[in-house]
């Protein structure tokens, strides 16, 4: 079987093979690289769980840091108060990053 591109008439074997594969649906179309969520949790349950985890995880980290700093520096839980707010914001940022419309590929969405 000759598969050199300079075959006498018509398209080469590679091209004919590719065309045949495409006709039969064997070649999957190239996927877009911007699949951030990668089919994660398309069901309502999955989306809900994902949003909840994203929101809460940032808050958990922030409360842990704020609590630790408040213990370290004095009696008033001022760090805890500040970090709870920051953690809430970070949680919303996480959720935004998951569901942000992909206006340009692979770039993080500009800030609010």
């Amino acid at each position, binding site marked *: 079987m000759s598969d050199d591109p300079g075959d006498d008439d018509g398209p080469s074997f590679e091209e004919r093979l590719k065309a045949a594969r495409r006709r039969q649906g064997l070649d999957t179309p190239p996927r877009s690289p911007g699949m951030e969520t990668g089919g994660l949790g398309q069901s309502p349950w999955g989306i809900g769980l994902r949003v909840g985890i994203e929101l809460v*995880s940032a808050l958990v980290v922030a409360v842990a840091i704020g609590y630790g700093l408040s213990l370290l520096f004095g009696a008033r839980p001022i760090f805890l108060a500040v970090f709870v707010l920051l953690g809430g914001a970070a949680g919303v940022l996480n959720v935004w990053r998951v569901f942000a419309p992909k206006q340009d590929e692979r770039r993080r969405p500009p800030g609010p």
Partner: protein
Amino acid sequence: MAAQGSSIDALGQFQLHTALGPLGAAVNFTQSNLCMVAAGVLTLGLLWVGMRPRAMVPGRMQSAAEMAYEVVYSMCVDTIGPEGRAFFPFVFTLFFFILFGNLLGVWPYDFTFTSHIVVTLALTMVVFIMSTWVGLRIHGLHWFSYFVPQGVPKPLLPLLVPIEMLSYVSRIISLSVRLFANMMAGHVMLEVFGAFVVMLGTAGVIFWIPSGLAFAVNVALIGFEILVATLQAYVFAILTCIYLHDAVHLH
């Protein structure tokens, strides 16, 4: 074991006990560790047995092994980019360790080691430390510009940079809790409905129909669990890839 007396002991299944008799007891080798070893051995077995024929036209096992390789490979390259080839062995190991761990857990009498947050947190810490280290190695101190969002007025930066940092660190929690919560919730549901079957089935003849319904739910749940087991392993692997992408490319 599920229904003790009149209460449902849904969490008893997650208790660790030593395996392999006195030898395991001497070194605290638990059934969780045994399942981890089994997951590793099964992965190696799939690849070794599958690739032994080295046939031009692959058989069933060889197709499975080749598909496993190709899926993870394309996931790495598609998500991370050409640099993803360097991380392919890591992601492959991680994916199959979690996948076989999850799937073994659906098997009766087996233990799901991914239903313990210690395990998932340890796996997540590996991913987190590695992606941070990769970012620092590639970009040096410039890596910290990852925390500075683009197109933001300067006065807002003192507020936004801590938020970005918290968001970055919260990956540890979100990645580990997602896997742990999915696996634990599924197995608690299985246990609860399994207990319903036993409790209703032994309560009297008129309860046989609800007992059968609970059994049907359990059958459906097993199928659902297999889906969740595969999906969560995939999610863990692809999120690892996305984090590595962020480390390699910054944004």
